C-alpha cells in the first residue's frame, strides 16, 4: 500500500485542479494586484504578501482558459518555485484531498499544445477528474514567454 498523496485543489472555469501540498506555501483571499506594463500576458502583476513582493500568474491565461468574468474575484494559491514564491490566481479554492497513486493516469494523447506541458496527468476521483498541475512549468512558462516577448520588442 503506497503512501496517500495530498493535494491542494482549486477550480478554474469549473475544472478541478490540484497541486501537491508540499509545494504550496499558503492560500489567501484576493490581494490587490499592481499590473506590470510590458510584462508577458500571463503575469497579472505584483502582490504584496506581508512585505514580500511576489509575482502573480493568471492561471486562466496560462492554461488558455477564457478570461475570468469581470465580477469574479480570484484567489491566490502561493506556491514555492525555484525562484521564490509565486502566486497563482485561481477562481475558487477546493479542499485538501488525499488520493492514491493508483488513481493517476497520464493525459490522453489528444491533449496537446501549451497546456499539455503543464498538466502532468489526472487523478480519477469518484465523481470527477483532478488535473495535476506541474508547479515548475506553470511558473516557468512566464519566464519563457517573457523572453519571447523581449525578442519581439527587439525585432520591432
Amino acid at each position, binding site marked *: 500500500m503506497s503512501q496517500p498523496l495530498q493535494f491542494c485543489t482549486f477550480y478554474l472555469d469549473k475544472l478541478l485542479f490540484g497541486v501537491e501540498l508540499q509545494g504550496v506555501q499558503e492560500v489567501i483571499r484576493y490581494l490587490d494586484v499592481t499590473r506590470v506594463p510590458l510584462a508577458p500576458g500571463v*503575469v497579472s502583476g505584483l502582490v504584496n504578501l506581508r512585505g*514580500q513582493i511576489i509575482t502573480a500568474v493568471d492561471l486562466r491565461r496560462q492554461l488558455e482558459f477564457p478570461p475570468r468574468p469581470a465580477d469574479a474575484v480570484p484567489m491566490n494559491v502561493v506556491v514555492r518555485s525555484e525562484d521564490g514564491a*509565486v502566486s497563482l490566481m485561481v477562481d475558487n479554492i477546493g479542499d485538501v484531498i488525499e488520493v492514491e497513486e493508483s488513481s493517476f493516469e497520464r493525459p490522453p494523447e489528444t491533449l496537446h499544445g501549451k497546456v499539455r506541458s503543464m498538466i502532468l496527468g489526472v487523478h480519477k476521483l469518484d465523481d470527477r477528474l483532478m488535473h495535476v498541475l506541474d508547479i515548475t512549468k506553470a511558473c516557468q512558462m512566464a*519566464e519563457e514567454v517573457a523572453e519571447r516577448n523581449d525578442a519581439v520588442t527587439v525585432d520591432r
Partner: protein
Amino acid sequence: MSDTEIVQEFLVESYENLDRLDQELVSLEKNPGDVETLASIFRTIHTIKGTCGFLGFSKLEAVAHVGENLLSKLRDGLARLTPESTTALLAMFDAVRQILASIETTGQEGERHDEELIASLAKLLKSEPASKNKVSSAPVPSKGEHSKEKAGASPPDIRATVEKKIQEDPHPMVEVPAEAGVVKSAEVVEGVHAQQGARTQSSAADSTIRVDVGLLDKLMNLVGELVLARNQILQFTNSSEDSSLLATSQRLNLLTTEIQAGVMKTRMQPIGNIWSKLPRTVRDLALTCGKEVSIEMEGQETELDKTIIESIKDPLTHLVRNTVDHGIEKPEVRRAAGKNPVGRLHLRAFHEGGQVIIQISDDGAGLDAEKLRRKAIEHSLITPEQGSRMTDGETFNLIFLPGFSTAEKVTNVSGRGVGMDVVRTNVEKIGGTVDLQSKQGHGTTVRIKIPLTLAIIPALIVTCDGDRFAIPQVSLTELVRLEADEVEKGIEMVHGVPVHRLRGQLLPLVHLSEELKLREGHGTGAGQDGAVNIVVLQSDGQPFGLVVDAVNDTEEIVVKPLRKQLKNIKTFAGASIMGDGHVALILDVMGVAQRSNVISEARHRAMAEKHDDTAEKIAEKKTFLLFTGPDDSRMALPLNTLARLEELPNSVVEKSGQQWVAQYRGQILPLIHLGSVLEERRTELKRTPRSGELSEGPPLQVLVCNYEGQTVGIVVEEILDIVEDSADVRHPASRPGVLYSVVINGRVTELVDIPAVLQTSGVTQARQTVQVEATR
C-alpha cells in the same frame, strides 16, 4: 574548541591586526616619537609570533621573530625608524599576510623562502646600534618605564615599575616573573605591555560580536514587514474611539520606527574601514614615483551601508592612486612653484542632504583645461566646435569619458585611459555621482556623492494612468508643468515626435503611458485639468522629459528586486511597497531612455559628428532649401548639396524593378520618395498611399542631387523657400534619415541626411553591387 577553530580564530584576529599595522607604521614614520603606536605594533607582532609558535607554524614564527626583534629595539629607543627599516617591516607584514593566506587556503604554511627577508631584517638589526649615540641625544620619549630603562635602570627599579603596574591593574591576567636579576628589563616591560594589550583586546571582544550579514539582511526584511503591519494597524486605529487602543498603537508606532532605525544602523560601517588601507598605498606609490605625499583624513566615522562601502572601495583607491601619480608634482617642481615639497592629499567624508559626500582633494598641479580640450579633440571624443563651447568645468569632466588619459606617458600605475570612466560607472551603479573641480597650479578636488544606503532611496512618486511609479531622485533634474493654455505652444512636433523647448534647447518628450503601453492611442499627455507634467530626467548625460499624468510626492522607498520572471523588462529597476500596502514599480531611467531611443540616438549623433566629415561640412554652410516632407513636416537641405529643382509630370515616371525612375536629360534618374524612407517609425495605417504610386496625381516636386557621382531625385511634397540661417539650435535627430533638428527662421526644422536616405532606399547599395560585378 577544535584545532581548526583555533586556527580560524587566529587568522581572523591576525588579519584585523595586520590591517591596522600598515596604518600605524606609516603614521609612526611621520611621528617617530609616538610610543603608544610603536608599542601597539610590537604587541601585534608579538601576539602573532607567540600564537604561531603555539600552533606550530615555524616559518611564520621565524619571520615574525626577527621583525619583533627589530621592533623591540625601536621601542626601547636603541634604534631609530628609518625609511629602510619601515620598508623592511612592511615587507615583513606582507610576508606574514602571505603565510596566513596560505594557511587559510591549504592549512599549511607552504613552500617559502623568506631567508632574504629575514637576512635583511637581521642586517638592519645589526647596523642599527651604529646610530646609538644619536639616539641618546635625540628627544626620545621620556615617559615612565622607558626612561628608566634608558638611564640604566637597576633591577629593583624595574620591579617597582612592574609592581606599580600590577597595582594599577587589579586583575592581572598573567603574573610577570619580575625577579630582579633573573629577567632582563626589556622582557619585563614587554610582559606588562602584552598583559595590557590582552586586557584591552578582551574588553573589545566583550562589547562586540560578529554577526552574519545574511542574518542582518533577514532582519531588515522582517522590519520592512513590521513597518507595513504597523501602517495598517495605524489606519484601523485612527478611526477607532478606544483611547487605550490608540495609545497602544502610538507606542507601537514609535517602537517600530526605532527598531527600523536600529536595524538599519547595524548594516552601517564607518568609511574609515576602507580608508585605513590608503596611507600604505599612498606611501608605496609616492616612493615609486619619487614624490612626497602626506595624507590627511577627516570624517572617518561617517557611516555608510556595508554594500556601498564595498562597492566604492575600488573607485576610491583608484582616485587616490591617480592623485599621487598625476596630481601631485615632484618635490623639486613643487619647490620651484613655491609650494611645500610635501604634497597634501586630503580625504573628507561628510553627510549632506541625506547623502554622503566623499571629497578627495590635493594641492597638486591641477588640470589644464586647454590641454584636456586638445587631447579630447585629438582622440575624436569631441569636435573642435564642441570644445570651444565648453566651460572649463565641463572640460574637466571629460576625463571621465572612456579612452581618456591625461598622463603624458603610460606608467604601470595609471595612464592607460581606463580607470576614470570605470570610477564613474562604478559610482553611478550605486546611484551616486562624480564631479571634478580643478584650478591649474592649485590642485584638484573630486567629489563623490553617494546615497547612504541602497536599500532605501529617495524617489519621486508619479501617477500614470492610475498606476503609481517611483523615479529614483538621482536621475531627476527638474519638474516642468505646462498649464492647459501653454500646452499648445509648449509642445512642438518634430515629425510627430514631441519636443519641448527648455531654455532654448529641444528636450525630447517621452510619454510614459505610451512607452509602457498603458493605454491605447496617442494623447497630448495632459492630465485631467489639461496641464502637462514633464519630469526632466538625465540618463547617460542625455536629458529627456518624461510626461506623466500627475506628480505626487517624494518619498523614501524600500527597494525590492523583481523576480527572475520580470527581470527581462529593462524599464523597471525594482518594486517597492507604498505606505498603503500597494506595490509600486520603480522606473529604471536608463531603461526607459533606451526603450524610447533617447540614448542610442544621442550616441548616433556623436558618431555622425565624429566620422561623417561631409555631414559636418554641410552643416556649416548656412543656405538651406526649405520644403515640406511627408505629413507636412518642415524639412531642409543645405542648398549646395542640390544640383537642380525640377517639377516632373507623372507621365515620365516609370518603374524599373523595385525602383521608381524617370527619364531625365538622357539619363535614368532614380526617384526616392522621402515619405517612404522616413516613415519607418509610423504605423502601417498612416503610410501615405502615394509612396507606392508615384505615377498618379499632381506633378512631382523633385530635388535633383549628386551624391558620390550618382544623380538621384528626391521627391518632396512642396518646395517652400530658400533661406539663410545660422541654425545654431541643434538637437539630435529623432529618426533615421534625419541629421539634426534645427531651428531655422524660428521654427523647428529637420535636416535631411542624404547618405542615410540613399542607403535606406537601397540606391547606394544597388550601385555598389553593380560595381562589384563590374570589377570581376
